């Protein structure tokens, strides 16, 4: 009997599955992606959530409103100030508190600094995903300057819990304005370096242009917001559409893309950093004098009812929905996190592209995993 010495030829059309994560350096955390592949082409992608689900929404139901703020920091830790802002705005809206002008100015400046810091870190990580270790070092180096300014005023580097309902924990440090102005002067030069090292890089452009396209209609369908949504031409900037803080008093452009590919998403964030610097420059010299907090009751009880408040975080529209039954803690608190909606589009974006592009695409969506799982 003749034996079949040749191994059976593997059908290359056959689909197989690759498990990426939860411990994988390029998923930026503990996201698990199960990719179905045909050869090297991704046919579908299934994200698995819950590897960092800490039950923050459930914990909020036991906490008072000022306590909730400390938990929101830990959701999207790269835009900690902005997460605090959304809860503060909601409580202030529900209690109909007038926040001093000074507080609104400081909050807006802090939000924009957070956005720049977040985008710097993203730029470093994105560069590293594309194979450039230098980017991470550059991004982190410049980010430390913002963290120094934060540390002086807020007392913490990363998770500040600086905002309270009605105002701020403490007034800004006397050095704050000088430090911020120095930073902007410094970073205007450095952002040019960023462009030289990565934006203009041929390898990077070849890997990102025309890869991972999300059209405007699809972005709206999936609820993709933030720089990712704006890259597709979806005008979704909450700062423009539902202004809060002093965004209605400053002039800034909403940056919109057209193509919606990975490179466009990259460019959105690079341009947004410049735009954030413009906003800060308009505000930093005009911070009015006054109190750093409004007079608030010792125990905050929201009137019974439903409330919704949204802000623009570094990744998109962050919403918080609260059902109150009149007690000092919320009956239900739901966070509409931008990353969760952006993740839902990942499967659609990746289909038909190579597995190597998947890393670039998921990098350009800028995930923070605890914000997805909460």
């Amino acid at each position, binding site marked *: 009997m003749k034996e079949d010495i040749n191994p059976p030829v593997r059908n290359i059309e056959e689909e197989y599955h690759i498990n990426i994560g*939860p*411990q*994988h*350096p390029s998923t930026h*955390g*503990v996201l698990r992606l199960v990719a179905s592949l045909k050869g090297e082409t991704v046919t579908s992608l299934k994200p698995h959530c*819950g*590897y*960092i*689900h*800490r*039950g923050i929404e*459930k*914990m909020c139901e*036991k*906490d008072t409103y000022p306590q909730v703020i*400390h*938990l929101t920091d*830990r959701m999207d*830790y*790269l835009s900690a100030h902005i997460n605090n802002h959304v809860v503060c705005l909601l409580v202030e809206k529900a209690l109909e508190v007038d926040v001093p002008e000074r507080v609104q100015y400081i909050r807006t400046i802090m939000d924009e600094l957070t956005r720049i810091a977040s985008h710097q*870190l993203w730029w470093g990580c994105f560069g590293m995903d594309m194979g450039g270790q230098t980017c*991470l*070092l550059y991004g*982190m*180096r410049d*980010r*430390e300057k913002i*963290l120094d300014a934060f540390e002086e005023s807020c007392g913490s*580097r*990363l*998770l500040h819990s600086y905002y309270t309902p009605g105002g701020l924990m403490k007034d800004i440090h006397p050095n704050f304005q000088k430090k911020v102005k120095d930073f902007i002067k410094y970073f205007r030069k450095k952002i040019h370096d960023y462009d030289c090292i990565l934006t203009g890089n041929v390898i990077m452009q070849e890997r990102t242009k025309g890869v991972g396209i999300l059209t405007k209609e699809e972005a709206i369908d999936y609820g993709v917001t933030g720089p990712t949504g704006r890259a597709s031409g979806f005008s979704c900037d909450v700062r423009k559409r539902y202004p809060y803080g002093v965004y209605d008093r400053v002039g800034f452009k909403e940056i919109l893309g057209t193509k919606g590919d990975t490179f466009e998403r990259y460019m959105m964030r690079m341009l947004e950093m410049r735009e954030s610097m413009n906003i800060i420059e308009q505000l930093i010299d005009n911070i009015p004098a006054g109190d750093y907090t409004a007079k608030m009751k010792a125990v905050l009880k929201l009137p019974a009812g439903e409330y919704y408040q949204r802000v623009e975080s570094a990744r998109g529209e962050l919403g918080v929905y609260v059902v109150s039954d009149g007690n000092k803690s919320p009956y239900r608190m739901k966070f509409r996190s931008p990353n969760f909606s952006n993740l839902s589009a990942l499967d659609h974006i990746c289909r038909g592209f190579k597995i190597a592009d998947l890393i670039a695409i998921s990098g350009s969506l800028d995930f923070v*995993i*605890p914000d997805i799982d909460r």
Partner: protein
Amino acid sequence: MKEADFRDNETLELYKQSGGNILVTTLDAVIDWGRSNSLWPLTFATSCCAIEMMAAAAPRHDFSRFGMEVYRASPRQADMIVVAGTIVNKMAPVLKRLYDQMSDPKYVIAMGACAVSGGPFFYNSYHVVRGVDHIIPVDVYIPGCPVRPEALLYGVMQLQRKIKLESLTNPRKTENLK
């Protein structure tokens, strides 16, 4: 930091056995020197502390000065795992598996309040492991929420001290210390 502050945990050195064969003690000194000065961490991070761990690797704090800049993505190449962030029940089996896949000698640093005890998620949370030492043995605990990069450097230096107490005749001495 002053030398006196760094040596505040005097009891650690008491475990170092004096005496022994000159060959063994000389080899010990060489091996411990090598091990403690090339700790390669596993790229493992779950939440906020990860950013501070990256900041510790970044130019300002630069922990390649302590021989641990080489992040390894595979547990088989790593000497040390820095548990940076909350471990939830779904992640716990994964962490245990990663630890089992690492080759001996292996060390664990619990970085941040969440890894030490569950931290802010100790109360009222249904899905958080209250301390990573329920799953894997921990060598150094670093408190903080999040841990500052300086504190991580201090923790790493304490781990290096601990490694220097190891001996060929009593290889898992660090385990006995706990």
